């Protein structure tokens, strides 16, 4: 088995077993898909997917869920320590994802030409970047919206060695998570790309209509808390008043990366 071109998938599930199982079956129907497992974020027992590979059944997880940062960290911890796979890449997904494109071989073929490329953000059709991807499949960038993400094993192992996680568990709802990640990636003279070769859209129906089944807040309340808690962390940890300060750090590190790595010919959008 040539595992080089395989991509593993970990899906965060909270109380939506059927939705998660359907997404897993859908993913498994594609070529070059490696391990596909569910990461359980404190579901009720009857809503735990049969594909679950790791679970947090603590009181806290059951009461509040894990959200993407804690959920992704739980899955990544399992992936690097326990997964029986040789895939170099893992895709982390919320279970409300809908597959839009799945060209795994082409994507990994492109990014594996660049050793420094350690993260890929799938670009959804609703992303502001999608219209720039007519003549290119991948682009170097630093500013991505939170959602699905594909990480390279070497990056995950490096971050776990350094800090025993990838994403900040204190940033519960994941406000600006991918900007923080971009800062850490570019500060290490590594890079991240966006691509539509693998792409998902978000089915917001679950958050709008089934938030009570998921046992989470309504979409509006969640958005308010995302900002309120996110700004608190931004201020407390970094002394910044708004996202623009953090984004400036990301942008400057990105510009510096381009300057010191002129050989990396991945196109940029701007």
């Amino acid at each position, binding site marked *: 088995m040539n595992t080089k071109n395989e991509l593993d998938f970990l899906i965060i599930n909270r109380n939506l077993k059927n939705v998660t199982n359907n997404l897993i079956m859908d993913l498994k129907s594609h070529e070059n898909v490696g391990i596909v497992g569910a990461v359980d974020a404190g579901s009720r027992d009857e809503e735990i997917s049969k594909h679950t590979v790791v679970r947090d059944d603590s009181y806290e997880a059951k009461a509040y869920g894990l959200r993407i940062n804690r959920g992704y960290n739980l899955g990544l911890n399992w992936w690097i320590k326990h997964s029986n796979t040789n895939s170099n890449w893992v895709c982390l997904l919320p279970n409300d994802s809908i597959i839009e494109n799945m060209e795994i071989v082409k994507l990994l073929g492109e990014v594996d030409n660049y050793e420094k490329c350690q993260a890929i953000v799938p670009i959804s059709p*609703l*992303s*502001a*970047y999608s*219209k*720039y991807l007519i003549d290119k499949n991948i682009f170097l*960038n630093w*500013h991505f*919206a939170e959602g699905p993400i594909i990480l390279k094993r070497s990056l995950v192992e490096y971050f776990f060695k350094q800090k025993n996680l990838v994403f900040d568990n204190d940033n519960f709802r994941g*406000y600006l998570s991918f900007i923080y990640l971009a800062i850490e990636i570019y500060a290490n003279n590594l890079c991240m790309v966006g691509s539509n070769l693998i792409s998902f859209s978000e089915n917001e129906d679950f958050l709008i209509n089934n938030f009570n089944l998921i046992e989470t807040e309504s979409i509006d309340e969640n*958005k308010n808390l*995302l*900002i309120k808690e*996110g*700004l608190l962390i931004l201020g407390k940890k970094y002394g910044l*008043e*708004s*996202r*623009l300060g953090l*984004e*400036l750090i*990301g*942008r400057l590190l990105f510009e510096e990366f381009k300057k010191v790595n002129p050989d990396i010919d991945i196109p940029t959008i*701007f």
Partner: protein
Amino acid sequence: MSLEVIDSIIELADKYRKKISIIPSRRQIDAKSLGGGYVNKWSTEEFTNYVRAADKGKHIWLSRDHSGPWQLNETVNGVMVNFEDAMESCKESLKVDIECGFDLIHLDASLGLKHGRSSSQILDDTLYLLNYCEEIRIENNLPEINYEIGSDEQSQIPTDPLEAEEQLNLYLKNIKKNSLPKPTFYVIQTGTKVAETRNIGSFQSPFNVEQVLPTSVQIPAILKICQENGIFFKEHNSDYLNNESLSWHRRFGINAANIAPEFGVAHTKAILHAAKLWGFNSFLSSFTEYVLDNKKWEKWTVPKTKADNYEKVIIAGHYHLSDEYIIKLVRDLDCDLKLKGVSLGESIKGSIKNSIDRYLQYFGYGLF
């Protein structure tokens, strides 16, 4: 805009000894031959005389916002103004602006898109007006004028930096081909948008807006385009931005910004506040009824607005400050307040100056 706003700008420019543009639209102030405007019922000529006399330090740039066909009115007595008439009216307005010695003129022919003109005709119209302005300037032996091109209408201009670059290149190429002067400013969307008394654009949104480039990506991209083309980058619709957003303008390198209704709103709020504080309820009822009945607030409210009557009145009150009925109402209020030892004029001026000064501080006017 109001007389008090103009006075406040002149005083603040003098205080900081730095340039500020007073930039009326054609509806606010226009040539005497075109009927003048709603600000103090002034014509361009009267406005110019007033500002030039008051601006002892010569810090004010007399400027024109959105000069182009249909910018004064799109219909007359319910009948659509045709292109030829709209263009003639615009030319007359520009001629007076230039003869009055305006320092900056924003040429914006983009309303033509609503009236059946194509994008290439809009370009031709802009070049035609630019050429016309230069003819008038040269005829009158006047110094060079700063021009501004582009539009802030979100439906009519590219929000995409690549499209904006393509448009700018096209304009600059044709301007050069026609040996016309290169504009000083280019207006591009930065993610600001005014509705009611809020800035609802993506600029200060704490989260990503679907299908809209993040501010931190959009603005540096625009700035690069402008720098490469040797043109300054001007933001429109900068009203109601919070202090944090304003503080980023200099850091991003935004060269200039237009602020319009916020200062008019500050004027109205100061009047209403004084009336309320001293219990002049009959004034409040009359003022409110008049503004609500005239429905100028409709221009700024969002669909299914939740704005209450007070908000509607502060949104639109400044449009009526030169209406006879409102002049009389405010004059009576002023007399009543004087009896109580209160100066309405000072309260209004203080409010407006605070509102303007907030921008000036963040735009570096306090720095030496």
